[in-house]
């Protein structure tokens, strides 16, 4: 199956700092999404971004599909940004179904 690798695995930031999270994937994809899992386990969709760049407030994401990677930028981090950030992809292939393959995530802690 398609491999999804995220880095760094863990990150500690002081409030107000910026960060970049990376997602590498091993095959062409139809779909790439970034999710945030809060400390209570709730998964929230942040971006649908199989290619290009999108911004939503302090968050932005860029996917370079030809080079098989995506980046999530967090600016002016806040303590509420803490949690685990997952990248998930859907392989581009006939009969691949609609299964999203998740990476292992980046665990982010933002301290006051």
């Amino acid at each position, binding site marked *: 199956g398609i491999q999804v690798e995220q880095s760094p695995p863990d990150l500690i930031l002081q409030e107000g700092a910026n960060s970049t999270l990376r997602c590498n994937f091993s095959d062409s994809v139809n779909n*790439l*999404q970034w999710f945030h899992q809060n400390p209570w386990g709730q998964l929230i969709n942040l971006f649908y971004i199989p290619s290009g760049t999108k911004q939503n407030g302090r968050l932005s994401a860029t996917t370079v599909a030809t080079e098989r990677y995506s980046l999530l930028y967090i600016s002016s981090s806040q303590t509420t940004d803490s949690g685990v950030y997952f990248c998930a992809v*859907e392989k581009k292939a006939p009969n691949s179904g609609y299964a999203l393959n998740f990476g292992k995530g980046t665990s982010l802690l933002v301290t006051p």
Partner: protein
Amino acid sequence: GAGVSQTPSNKVTEKGKYVELRCDPISGHTALYWYRQSLGQGPEFLIYFQGTGAADDSGLPNDRFFAVRPEGSVSTLKIQRTERGDSAVYLCASSPQPGGASGNTIYFGEGSWLTVV
């Protein structure tokens, strides 16, 4: 509520017992997914329903796992002869349409935490 609802939120069962986990998707969502998440890992795909039918069950680990969605809304994940290795969070998600597309956001429930002792 308006979100994906899962019950029970927590379940502790003995090895060998049968377990049912329920998912109530967002009203009108035709696509429903089950995932399993172990500690320190990302969610792992189990099965996807389009309407009443299981369109992709390639993620079910073995024949002890089965899921149904008889009326195209609520789904039940059934686990027979539970094993300690089945302990995980079982996540349900729904989306208006299947597959990824701009605006076709996938919504996850809060999960059912299963512990097999």
